[in-house]
């Protein structure tokens, strides 16, 4: 696949933006400024950036909680996300929800329900609507390796396969589900083998190579968009932080982390861009500077934003309120 230089640089920008935003959230967490937990996609950013960037404007993302790249790419700004972390009124959910439990229909992003893989059937339903209405839109739904053990994975995959719905199922296989390694999660070698049960084509990609993720997703979206039905994409990667920022992840062998550190998706992309003379180091540095500034501004914005009022608790339960 031929990818425009501009797109490659954007992919780099979003990798950086995701990393820096989550790094900053981690710091704020350790400073006690974020009251809830912080889960990052550290080390696996290429997954959400890759599949998120491959979507078209009118498509839908049904993400899970390590999909920061998707939020940013779709148009949920770093400011709103930072404010979200701090529980501010200007956050994506106005303080109603914390951290990554966000969504915004204006940008075609479904909210993430914490219950893992609930978004597979939900995503399939949006795809069903597109197919019924004859719209050339697709859905990308994502979950973790652990999330593939849930019943909703099975039911969502099956419905999509039976009806050839325009959806692509992504799996961020980062080797662990909290402390649970793959071998206690499934008795197969590749998560992608799960797709066999649905007669669904699958692909395995290097989840640390954003270009590969992007290309695979793009291709699968086009198949789906043209009536070819769903694809399952397993992105092999490695969670480099703990499950959340309070987890030291002692259960992960250090060697494994060492090994994967070399494959860091940002490093990888830098080498790729510079090595293939697509961009100069200085150009990347200037992108990084822009990112840094964006995050700083986001933080200031978030810090200066007001909190919601206690009475906001009672607002917004129903879309059609019932008169008393």
């Amino acid at each position, binding site marked *: 696949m031929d990818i425009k230089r501009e797109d490659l640089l954007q992919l780099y920008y979003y990798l950086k933006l995701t990393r820096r935003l989550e790094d900053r959230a981690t710091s704020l967490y350790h400073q006690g400024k974020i009251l809830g937990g912080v889960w990052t996609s550290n080390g696996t950013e290429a997954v959400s950036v890759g599949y998120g960037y491959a979507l078209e404007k009118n498509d839908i993302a049904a993400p899970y909680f390590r999909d920061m790249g998707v939020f940013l790419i779709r148009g949920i700004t770093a400011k709103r996300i930072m404010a979200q972390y701090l529980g501010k009124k200007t956050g994506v959910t106005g303080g109603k929800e914390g951290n990554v439990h966000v969504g915004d229909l204006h940008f075609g992003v*479904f909210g993430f329900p914490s219950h893992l893989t609930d978004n597979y059937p939900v995503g399939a339903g949006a795809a069903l609507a597109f197919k019924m209405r004859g719209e050339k839109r697709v859905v990308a739904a994502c979950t973790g390796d652990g999330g593939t053990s849930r019943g909703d994975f099975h039911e969502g995959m099956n*419905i999509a396969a039976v009806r050839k719905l325009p959806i692509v199922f992504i799996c961020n296989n980062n080797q662990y589900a909290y402390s649970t390694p793959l071998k206690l999660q499934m008795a197969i070698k590749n998560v992608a083998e799960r797709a066999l049960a649905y007669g669904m084509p699958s692909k395995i990609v290097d989840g640390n190579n954003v270009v590969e993720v992007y290309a695979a997703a793009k291709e699968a979206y086009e198949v789906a968009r043209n009536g070819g039905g769903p694809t399952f994409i397993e992105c092999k990667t490695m969670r480099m932080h703990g499950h959340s920022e309070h987890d030291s992840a002692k259960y992960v062998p250090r060697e494994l982390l060492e090994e994967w550190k070399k494959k860091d998706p940002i490093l990888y992309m830098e080498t790729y861009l510079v090595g293939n003379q697509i961009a100069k180091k200085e150009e990347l540095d200037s992108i990084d500077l822009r990112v840094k500034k964006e995050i700083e501004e986001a933080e200031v914005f978030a810090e200066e934003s007001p909190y919601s009022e206690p009475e906001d608790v009672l607002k917004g339960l129903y879309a059609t309120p*019932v008169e008393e």
Partner: protein
Amino acid sequence: MKETTYLEAIKEALDEEMARDPDVFILGEDVGVYGGAFRVTEGLSEKYGEWRVFDTPLSESGFTGAAIGAALVGMRPVVEMQFADFVSCAFDQLVNVAAKNHYRWGAATPLVVRAPYGGNVHGGAFHSQCIEGFFFNVPGLKIVAPSTAYDAKGLLKAAIRDNDPVIYCEHKYLYRRIKDHIPEEDYAVPIGKARIAIEGNDVSIITYGAMVHTAIEAAQTLKESGVSCEIIDLRTILPLDRKSILTTVKKTNKVVVLHEQTKTGGVGAEISALISESCFDYLDGPIIRIAAPDTPVPYSAQMEEAFIPQPKDLITAVEKLMRY
């Protein structure tokens, strides 16, 4: 005005709403060519095509999730549970995704779940349950339960037009057993408004669903012995019509709450508590609840009859209250 059964009224509501609004569609097990286990959707597949009356794989969580996803992108899905009992398999999607979408991230989920519920049909523990208790403590859902053909049609229309997830409890026992003269022209019964089924002065009987007919039967007998019952048919269970409840209590000063659902933690408890809280000073006697005992629904005719509240149980309660 034409004579219509409860079941036909439901079908008419579906048919008319599908004709009116192309976003309305039906999904569930065997709803298509077969027309549903109770034949509620019979003929609709021929009329609207197999995509708008959509046969799903056997997967309640999956197709409820899919309905949620379709709703999020503008459709108005009506899910049929083959029996209400199977809604337990879709509990997570309803409680954590559908119910919380709007509050959490501002997205409307216009979804109807048709739940053929209730006993007296020799179905045993898995084909007779009253399921309103599963959802009654879940903010964000609405629950309706028509007792007449008129309401069956009007409430289903209102539910389909509502922008929130509505659990529509249709009582299997009533399907072919009751008939109403219902208007030819379009109408909807507003969600959140109870009705006075029978006006009276001495005692209020607050109930819903099939038990409305039990109450009417009891009221007729009681009338012969000079007791005038006011019967409130709640129509909507969540949120409750507080005003109607408090108005009747202020009028009669005596209350019996009647439901088929098991007693502990039933809707009756909330009604009783509401009354105690808000018009304690109007009460001339204890609030009596008549409900099924706290067990699964038994199968044999003898046991099921003992399980389901009967007119005589209500009469005994009212007579006791009248002695106060």
